[in-house]
Structure formats: C-alpha cells, structure tokens
C-alpha cells in the first residue's frame, strides 16, 4: 500500500449481522490503525451503528471476527468489551435519566465508593463539555445536545484505549465541538485510538487520518480524506453530486 505499516488496534474481518431478512452488516472488513483518529461514514442505514454495536457487544454478530490486540472479542458482552479498555458513545443517548449529571459520570467507575481521583476526573471532564453548572441536575432533564456531551465526558472517565464515538457532532454547538475535537487530538497524542461515526464532513475530513466508507452493509471505500472525497462510488452513494467542488 506504500504507507507506513501502522499497528492495527482493531481488525474487523467479514463481520455479519442480519435482522430478520435485512442484512444490516454483510461481510464487512476493515482495520483500524492504532493511535490514530479514523472515521466511519456512509448513508443513513448503511450499517455503521450496527457495526459499532457488533464491536462493543451491544449486538452479537452472526459471523466474522473482531480482533482487538490479537484477541477475538466478537460476541463478548458489553461489560466484557468495556473491561478490555474499549468505550463508546451512542447516537441515541443513553444517560441515566434519574441520576444526576455527576452521578452519571461516576456510574462507570468500578469502585464501590468513587475515590477522590475519580471525582476530580469527573469534575475536569464536566468542565471540558461545559456541564459543570448542571452537575446536580438529573440526566433526564438535559437537552439532547447536553446528553450527548454527558455521554462523551462519561466515555472518557475510565481512560479507555479505544474510543468509539457515534455522531459526536450531532446536536452539539459548533464552538463547543471544536473544543471536543481539540481534546480528541490530545487523546490521540497520548496514544489512544479513536473511531468516529459522523455525518459532519468538517469533522471527518479535517480530523480523521483514515476513512472507511460503508454502503449496504459492506465497506465500499477506504483511504485518507483527500482520496475519499474524489472517490466516485462515495460521491454517488453519500455526498451527492452537488458536493463536488
């Protein structure tokens, strides 16, 4: 391929999942490079979120492998995947509605009594996403955008090595989004691997080094942003003709 031989963080091989007769993920393979920010894009309904669900144990694959550091984690339960050092956020947010914002943050620690370090980290991350003033508010009382931000902050509580973000930009103010992206780059500098599902092309094209494109449950293209933007199949399936500049 003529590129530097990146280490692979997550090697997805021939992943399959059908719901009834609908083959949502239909033999999808891609390799997420270690220590980089990668993007997963595709039309609505192309199988991106299902793929995330298969990678994180939220759904069990019908076939295929998910190799994380050489170990097949396909079919593990969500908490088992979590304990491997993988966290994610959801497109449709999953905050605990009847816990406060601060309790939501502490809910992911494995400690019975969250220690001072965990509390300090929670405060720090809430400040990052501009939610400090709502720390005592119930999760269910937050707006959609604020719930997205809470999930983002909560996903970073446990210092994961692989972070999967499902539409982090959706419903988030663009200036705040810029801060989140700066933070994502800091995480990358610390050696974390990040995979982002996103429709916001500013995020994908300016912040991801490698992009995977799905359509109809399979990967139809892969490459750096400049290459993906010129790819005829991607333009046809995803960008639409008007996007060509």
């Amino acid at each position, binding site marked *: 391929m003529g590129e530097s031989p990146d280490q692979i963080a997550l090697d997805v091989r021939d992943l399959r999942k059908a719901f009834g007769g609908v083959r949502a993920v239909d033999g999808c393979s891609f390799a997420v490079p270690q220590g980089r920010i990668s993007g997963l*894009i595709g039309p609505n309904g192309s199988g991106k979120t299902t793929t995330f669900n298969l990678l994180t144990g939220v759904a069990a694959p019908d076939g295929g492998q998910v190799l994380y550091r050489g170990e097949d984690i396909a079919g593990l339960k969500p908490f088992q995947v979590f304990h491997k050092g993988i966290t994610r956020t959801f497109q449709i947010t999953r905050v605990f509605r009847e816990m406060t914002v601060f309790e939501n943050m502490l809910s992911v620690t494995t400690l019975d009594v969250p220690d001072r370090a965990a509390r300090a980290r929670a405060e720090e991350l809430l400040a990052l996403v501009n939610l400090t003033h709502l720390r005592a508010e119930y999760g269910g009382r937050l707006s959609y955008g604020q719930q997205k931000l809470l999930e983002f902050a909560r996903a970073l509580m446990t210092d994961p090595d692989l972070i999967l973000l499902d539409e982090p930009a959706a*419903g988030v103010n663009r200036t705040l989004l810029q801060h989140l992206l700066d933070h994502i780059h800091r995480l990358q500098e610390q050696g974390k691997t990040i995979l982002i599902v996103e*429709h916001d092309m500013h995020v994908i094209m300016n912040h991801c080094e490698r992009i995977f494109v799905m359509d109809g449950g399979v990967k139809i293209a892969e490459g750096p942003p400049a290459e993906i933007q010129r790819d005829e199949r991607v333009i046809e399936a995803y960008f639409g003709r008007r996007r060509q500049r």
Partner: protein
Amino acid sequence: MALLELRDVQAAYGSIQILHGVSLQVNPGEVVAVIGPNGAGKSTTFKVIMGFITHLGGEIVFDGRSLVGQRPHRVLGLGLGYVPQGRVVFTQMTVRENLEMGAYLERDRAKVQASMDFVYSLFPRLGERPRQQAGTMSGGEQQMLAMGRALMMRPRMMMLDEPSLGLSPRFVDEVFDKIVELARGGLTVMLVEQNAARALEIADRAYVLELGRNRFEGAGRDLLANAEVRRMYLGGEARA
C-alpha cells in the same frame, strides 16, 4: 405586523426554569433561524409556543391571537406546524398513515387528499412508496416524512427543530433545499439548528439565544460574518 411575536417569554420544565426572557418576531414569509449553545433554550422556545411546557410569563402572539395557555392541538389548528427534533415518525405505520395522522384535526376528506397530493409532489420519494412502513425508511426519508406530516394541516408557519440532525450530507442538502422551496412558496419558517452556519445561509434573520435569553439578532448574512458570533457559536472556522 409580525405573524409570530414573543415578548419576554419565560418557561420551565417542571420546576426548572429554562427561558428567562426570550423575545422574537417572525414576519410573514420570512425564514428565521434560532441558534445558540447547548442548553440555550432553543427547543424549549418551540415547545412553549406549541403549549407543551409550562409558561411562566411573557406574551406569545400568533396571527393576532395569544397562544398562552393554549393546548398543542389548538395551536396546530391555528396554522402553526411543528417538526420536533430527531425524525419523530410513527415507525410502525406506513407513510400514508403517518401523513393521515398529521391531518387528524381535518374532517374534510377532500382537503386531506389535497394536502397529501401536495406533500407527495414536494417529496416524490414519499409518493413512490405510500405503503412502506416508516421505521424501515432511511433517516433522511424519515425526516422528509416528519416534515410532510407537519405540512398536512397546510400551516401558515412551520417550526423545525434541528432538521439536519444525524443526516448524511446529501440529505442535509435535500432538507435545506426543501425548506427554501417551501419558503419561496410562501410558508413562514422558523428553525433551530446546530448546523448554524448552514441555517444562517438560508435565513432572512436570526436570533442567538444563550442561557434562556436573547444574545444577538440580525440578518442571517450579517451574523454569519460577525466575528464574535463565529467564534462563540459557529466553531470559528471559515466555511468552505
């Protein structure tokens, strides 16, 4: 005279006050954008206008009538349509059934059919598959269906809460094209968007809310060019 006017509106979810004094005007035929940080009260503004949440104070006047204390179906009946955030469709119902639900206040079958024809001409994709179950449609199609359903009462004004949320780029283009098309046809539009730069491009005027109050207002183009607005709300970067 403004078609919709809010004067110093205060509103709450239960005991939590979100709006502390929002004032805005929408004139007939205008496209007005409402932007601002998360938690600014943008969606809340729409909900208090529609009568979904507790109104604490201030005036809300639509077409010369006060909406304060009105139930949502009454507001709808007065000609104010609403498309909530997040492509809310009846997933188990067909396209046609969803549209019929949008016209549930209309007893005249001929009018319902005429509205349906109008929606199908605006969104041909819906017209091609009236029997498809809404839950099996793509996100972009569901957003069009949600818009179509709000149009079934043939409102004079429509409020759209984040119409581009979670849509792929080509559908974002399509949705914004349709909003412009509807506006050209005479529909008055007010929309909330986090894709604020995009909303300002099509807006005649816009309001910036912050912490439940007005912060800026002006022509869409002017706000788009305003350095402080760009830095605080649009992510700072110049749009390609």
